[in-house]
């Protein structure tokens, strides 16, 4: 292989590369203006080196090619107006482009004219020769000869033009190049996004260098009529051919320039690397073949085959290495999204607040995908979604049912126009329009739409590719996982808070209870209390009054937890201080009721039974403020309810209360309890009930108070075994001793 062949090979390769680029860019978005113009530019640019290669390799030897056919290669000159057009719309249309669109189209006309001229009129004499025929009819003959004369003059003029057409049109091409470079630079300066700028810089520099080299090597020498040394000229053109398309390929591969899809990028990398590889391989095989030939002095087919086999063996592992290398170095953009996902998932691992999650998502998408605006919406109500972390105070997304169901069934990111074409434009309220939404990413969790991402268009008119949508789908899954952990975190916080509160309530309740049972000559006592899981407002109390009397309280404040416990505590303080004043029972209850009614909110109250047992009189004076009737079981088994008193405490002020009175005889048993005991339910929703309670008391009544108490509790617990969520359970037993 000689230098000439090598040059032809490079021409061929760069021509094919340009064709391939043209194909790749066009196929990616056949309707996009930028893609059409860019691929046109590459296509025309590719014709140049291909023609040169063809001319150098095999056309040169063929003597009789008509010059119009050779001249048809001038079609490649359309590259220059294409470049001019490209410069005006890259990376996005310049403001003046829309005003002067026609101008950029008209720019094609001189080049087209030049092409027609050099093709049709390459050899004016030959064209005229076709026309020069005789006619037997004199008039027609005269007209024909007149026409012929005119044509001859025109062709003479064109022939004259043809003498220096290449110089003249080189000036036009040079002008195009200069304008194009100025416009490209102007556009480049206007880009603000740093990553986009980086991508575009490579392309602009590449094109500028490529075109610049060609201008220096060919255009300017043609215009000023200098003959550059051939090797210099060829080297410059070749360098230009490598740098120009190379920069565009590089931008495509490295930065997903023009959003070229993964497969196209891969094939681009492989084709180029394979071309270089095969080129190298052929070169070595040929050189080795001729070396061996010169060594052994004759041509040997055997040796050639041997060399090829050795080379194949040698190259196969190298090719694998190269393949790996290519993957590692060039297909690294593949990693862009996966690396992004990796870092994103690491980042959101520690996010437990929806607002923070939303702003992380927003930040990431804007930075990495060049999306102009990202809105993150989380579920607020039925098909209603609030904007989280929005810069704008936009309306919430209110969805129509059809659109909602469609998103659920779709499961994947989709373009907004898909939705508005299927349903009413307002199927999302005003949100889509308001946020300029182009892509909607549904966040689906347990068959429900937990949220949405509304993505506007990308900066600089980049489009969303299938790769983007696939990436967004994976991202959506990660966001859903993160949302779940936000929920779990919130729940655990809530639970912790509630548990702390319950511990407080339990502590308050325990603090209300007397440390020991009263000691009286004629009575014996027992008491039991078991708070529920949620802690209610139950409490009991024994208050010593002088030496012979004991106050007994059993009460149940409404509600649960800390409020109920506090209510009970307040009531206890009141009762204890009123008792010390030595008021009469009904006056005491009225005054407690007044105090509680005024000092608490309207819906909290307590049922309360207060009694005073006189050891000597063996009498109980009592006032029942709305509490479950205590049960008095006489020794003979007859039963009385202690009902006298008045309204529950704390609900309505200015109530009147009555005092009741019972005389105990030895063996009589009084049972005071709260509804948690009588209403304890078993797993079939049946209550323990007052009936069962009375029967059991009757059964156990001959035992000491302590025993009766524990037997009743045992019986209730056995009854309600397996039931969950019992209420507070309180039981106080007073038994008149049998002497």
């Amino acid at each position, binding site marked *: 292989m000689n230098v000439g062949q090598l040059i032809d090979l490079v021409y061929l390769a760069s021509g094919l590369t340009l064709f391939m680029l043209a194909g790749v860019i066009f196929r990616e978005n056949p309707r996009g203006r930028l893609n059409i113009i860019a691929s046109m530019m590459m296509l025309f640019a590719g014709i140049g080196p291909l023609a040169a290669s063809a001319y150098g390799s095999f056309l040169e030897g063929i003597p009789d090619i008509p010059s119009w056919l050779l001249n048809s290669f001038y079609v490649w000159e359309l590259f220059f107006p294409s470049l001019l057009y490209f410069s005006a719309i890259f990376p996005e249309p310049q403001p003046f482009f829309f005003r002067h669109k026609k101008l950029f189209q008209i720019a094609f006309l001189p080049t087209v004219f030049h092409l027609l001229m050099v093709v049709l009129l390459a050899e004016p004499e030959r064209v005229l020769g076709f026309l020069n025929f005789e006619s037997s009819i004199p008039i027609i003959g005269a007209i024909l000869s007149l026409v012929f004369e005119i044509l001859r003059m025109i062709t003479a003029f064109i022939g004259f033009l043809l003498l220096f057409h290449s110089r003249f049109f080189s000036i036009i091409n040079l002008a195009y190049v200069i304008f194009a470079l100025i416009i490209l630079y102007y556009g480049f300066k206007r880009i603000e996004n740093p990553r986009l700028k980086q991508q575009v810089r490579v392309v602009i520099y590449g094109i500028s260098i490529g075109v610049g080299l060609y201008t220096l090597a060919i255009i300017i020498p043609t215009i000023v009529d200098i003959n550059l040394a051939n090797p210099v000229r060829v080297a410059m053109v070749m360098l230009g051919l490598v740098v120009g398309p190379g920069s565009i390929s590089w931008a495509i591969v490295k930065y997903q320039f023009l959003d070229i899809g993964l497969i196209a990028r891969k094939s681009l990398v492989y084709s180029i690397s394979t071309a270089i590889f095969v080129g190298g391989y052929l070169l070595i095989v040929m050189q080795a073949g001729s070396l061996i030939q010169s060594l052994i002095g004759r041509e040997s087919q055997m040796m050639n085959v041997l060399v090829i086999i050795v080379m194949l063996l040698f190259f196969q592992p190298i090719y694998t290495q190269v393949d790996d290398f290519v993957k590692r170095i060039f297909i690294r953009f593949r990693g862009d999204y996966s690396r992004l996902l990796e870092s994103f998932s690491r980042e959101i691992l520690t996010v437990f607040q929806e607002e923070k999650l939303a702003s992380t998502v927003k930040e990431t998408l804007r930075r990495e995908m060049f999306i102009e605006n990202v809105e993150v919406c989380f579920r607020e109500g039925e098909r209603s979604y609030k904007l989280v972390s929005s810069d704008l105070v936009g309306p919430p997304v209110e969805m129509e049912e059809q659109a909602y169901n469609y998103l659920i069934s779709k499961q994947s990111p989709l373009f907004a126009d898909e939705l508005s074409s299927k349903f009413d434009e307002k199927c999302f309220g005003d949100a889509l329009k308001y946020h300029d939404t182009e892509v909607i990413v549904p966040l689906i969790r347990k068959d429900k739409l937990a949220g949405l991402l509304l993505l506007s268009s990308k900066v600089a008119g980049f489009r969303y590719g299938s790769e983007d949508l696939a990436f967004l789908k994976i991202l959506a899954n990660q966001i859903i996982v993160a949302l779940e952990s936000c929920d779990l975190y919130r729940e655990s916080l809530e639970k912790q808070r509630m548990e702390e509160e319950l511990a407080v309530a339990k502590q308050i309740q325990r603090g209300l209870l007397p440390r020991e049972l009263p000691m009286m000559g004629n009575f014996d006592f027992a008491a039991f209390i078991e708070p529920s899981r949620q802690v209610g407002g139950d409490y009991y109390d024994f208050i010593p009054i002088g030496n012979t009397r004991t106050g007994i309280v059993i009460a*149940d*404040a409404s509600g649960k937890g800390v409020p109920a416990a506090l209510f009970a505590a307040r009531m206890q303080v009141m009762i204890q201080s009123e008792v010390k004043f030595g008021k009469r029972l009904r006056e005491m209850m009225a005054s407690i009721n007044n105090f509680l009614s005024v000092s608490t909110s309207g819906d*909290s*109250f307590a049922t309360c039974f207060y009694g005073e047992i006189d050891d000597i009189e063996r009498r109980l004076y009592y006032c029942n403020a*709305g509490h479950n009737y205590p049960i008095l079981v006489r020794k003979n088994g007859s039963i009385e309810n202690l009902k006298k008193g008045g*309204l529950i405490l704390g609900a*309505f002020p200015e109530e009147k209360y009555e005092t009741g009175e019972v005389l105990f005889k030895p063996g009589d048993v009084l049972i005071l309890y709260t509804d948690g005991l009588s209403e304890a339910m078993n797993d079939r929703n049946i209550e323990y009930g007052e009936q069962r309670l009375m029967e059991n008391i009757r059964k156990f009544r001959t035992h000491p108070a302590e025993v009766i108490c524990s037997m009743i509790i045992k019986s209730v617990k056995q009854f309600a075994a397996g039931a969950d969520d019992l*209420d507070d359970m309180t039981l106080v037993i007073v038994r008149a001793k049998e002497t």
Partner: protein
Amino acid sequence: MKLTSREDNGIVILEPKGKIMGGPDATVLHDQLHEFIDQNKKKVVIDLAKVEWMNSTGLGILISGLTTLRNNGGELKLARVTEKIESLLTITKLITVFDSYDSVEEALKSFA
């Protein structure tokens, strides 16, 4: 608990159904009552025919409803109180506070 409401001649009739216990359930009834007060509808009948049971929170809601209505010059009346709840009202002596009627019609008439 489920809650429906209707109106008859300017009197609101609330029809809770199920158990009036604590929690979000009860808040609905509470909020509903206060909504009517805000709308200046101050004559309310609560039809308890379909209420199986209520606990102390439930009673609290009735009490605060009554208090709020009365403080605003209105009235709350109960109708068709079931036996079980009647015994609860008896024990707590709330039966003396609430006007309770055997039918909704009677309750409505009592406002006249």
